[in-house]
């Protein structure tokens, strides 16, 4: 939420606001409005649409006393606006209510999952970015060579694979049928975090890396080829700049800008991608938590996880726009 809470700067009269601050302000404002609408939509959808939420939770034929108790717990006896207000202020004060499945506080259930998922997403993002950018740059430098052909065809094939198929493939290769190197499930004892047993992270991270690398690779390769054929690289060559400097200081920075946007898109993808991968590996993150909550119709947990994922989505969107802007040299100067 840190990014989204930067206040929009009022345009200084008489001269143009700095383009980056201007953009951050505008995107943050839109982001906050979007999040507000998202929270209202999630709330309305989960609380109101299906008729009686308490009945949905307990199932038909629930006894009237329990039905009444659940209604009270969900504040269904209050007006619609009151219900929304209680829930929204709870999001900010940490009073998220209790899980309908086991009666424990939602925050206590979700917090360790949130941290585990963050570890998964960050590890995947860093490793995937490094591999994707490196492979893309090498393929562009060796355009139409064998490395370029092999990696491009492989990227095209892997891009479209469902993450659970990749995960199952890795389990078959590394932990069951072919080899027995790694654990097939990433069960963590309650109260411990993912970094206490790093070997449990290997297969989930590898799965997600395999899924995101092709996108980063393709973009990096295309952008790098474009940069290498540009006038400023031609100019640098004519001036006699050594090739390694041309690649590192002229082509690479310019190829990074569009690639950063794709990296941003892949972080967005990870918000949804963790759901299946965590489920496959029994990894205790919020994705698995969401699947369990949906199975149990645990509305407070569903609401919180969905809004958290949406907030992550909006923040990453803003961040990738800003970083891409910062990475485009000629856009840094106010015009």
């Amino acid at each position: 939420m840190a990014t989204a809470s930067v206040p929009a700067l009022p345009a200084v009269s008489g001269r143009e606001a700095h383009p980056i601050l201007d953009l951050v302000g505008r995107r943050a404002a839109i982001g906050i409005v979007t999040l507000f609408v998202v929270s209202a939509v999630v709330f309305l959808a989960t609380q109101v649409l299906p008729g009686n939420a308490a009945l949905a939770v307990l199932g038909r034929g629930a006894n009237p006393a329990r039905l009444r108790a659940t209604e009270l717990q969900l504040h269904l006896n209050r007006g619609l606006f009151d219900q929304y207000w209680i829930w929204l202020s709870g999001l900010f004060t940490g009073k998220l209510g209790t899980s309908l499945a086991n009666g424990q506080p939602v925050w206590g259930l979700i917090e360790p999952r949130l941290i585990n998922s963050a570890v998964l997403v960050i590890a995947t993002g860093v490793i995937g970015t490094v591999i994707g950018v490196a492979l893309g740059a090498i393929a562009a430098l060796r355009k139409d060579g064998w490395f370029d052909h092999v990696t491009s065809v492989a990227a095209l094939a892997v891009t479209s694979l469902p993450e659970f198929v990749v995960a199952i493939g890795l389990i078959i290769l590394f932990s069951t049928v072919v080899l027995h190197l790694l654990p097939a499930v990433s069960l963590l004892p309650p109260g411990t975090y993912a970094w206490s047993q790093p070997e449990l992270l290997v297969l989930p991270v590898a799965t997600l890396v395999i899924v995101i690398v092709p996108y980063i690779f393709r973009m990096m390769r295309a952008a790098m080829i474009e940069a290498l054929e540009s006038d400023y690289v031609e100019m640098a060559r004519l001036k006699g700049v050594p090739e390694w400097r041309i690649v590192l200081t002229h082509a690479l920075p310019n190829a990074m800008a569009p690639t950063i946007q794709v990296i941003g898109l892949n972080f967005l993808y990870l918000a949804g991608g963790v759901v299946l991968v965590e489920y496959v590996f029994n990894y205790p993150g919020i994705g698995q938590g969401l699947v369990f909550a949906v199975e149990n119709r645990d509305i407070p947990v569903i609401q919180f996880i969905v809004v958290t994922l949406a907030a992550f989505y909006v923040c990453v969107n803003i961040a990738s726009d800003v970083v891409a802007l910062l990475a485009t040299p000629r856009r840094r100067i106010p015009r």
Partner: protein
Amino acid sequence: MTGIAPAVSPEAAPPARTGRHPWLSVLWSTARTPRGAAGLTMALLVVLVAVIGPAVSPHSPNDLATLTFAKPSGQFPLGGDFLGRDVLSRVLNGGWLLLLMAVAATAIGIAAGAAAGMTAAYLPGPPDGIIMRTVDVILAFPQLVFALLLLSLLGPKLWLIVLAVGLSHAPAVARVIRSATLDIAERDYVKVAELQGMRPAKVMTKEILPNLISPLMVEAGLRLTYSIVIIAGLAFLGFGQPPPTANWGTMINENRIGLQLNPWAVIAPAVLIALLTIGTNTFTDAVARVTIGVDRRPEEAALLDDLGPEQA
């Protein structure tokens, strides 16, 4: 820049073979490229298994015909599943509904997205703002999460899965079609039609829509691939047809505890899903190359155009 065509350029469409529909001629040209032929072969192979499968399956998919996780044998070439049902028969019966649902979800997503995108771009004033803000809100949910949210509310019904996946495609399609429409709306033949007093709805369907064929075909291919991925993924998570029915996504999940005993119960459906998505995706890539004429997808081309060195 090396002569990159804009993301959408109707002129770049292949020379129409006389007497054919333009989209048929695109498909035809694509199928004759090596990449297109490879993609089509893979996808058609899986479609064949899914469609003919129920007619040729040797056993009933729900009979407990053999032993739990039985090894492959002459009578049961892929062995038994976690309940001792014939894996081959379940594989042959478990694909057609997945295909049907994916096609239906894609159709919903393309229709809704194209209608919203064209309207936003062509009709002046409030519709644009309203539609694009709605798009922003839906895009804030990852597609799978959006589908799970809807399913959690209304229960795991098949029509709802199709609708949820279709609707979750619409925003991305709307964005692509909106920018394509903005480009086309400026062309002379559209202006002429407007000056002749054609009503906006008719301009959209008669003048603009036929020129959106290239981006629509590429979008349809992409969304079909994603539909297969998401619908199979939902089935894997247990949100699909109710238990006894065979389904490739469900099979992978229910049989993975027996990987050591009979891996084929998992490998067979996984390979079919993989072959199908690789096939549709490769073919879509070939369509993009034929219609747009560059080695990148529309969304990548748009990013390059946006931030590329030319636009100073």
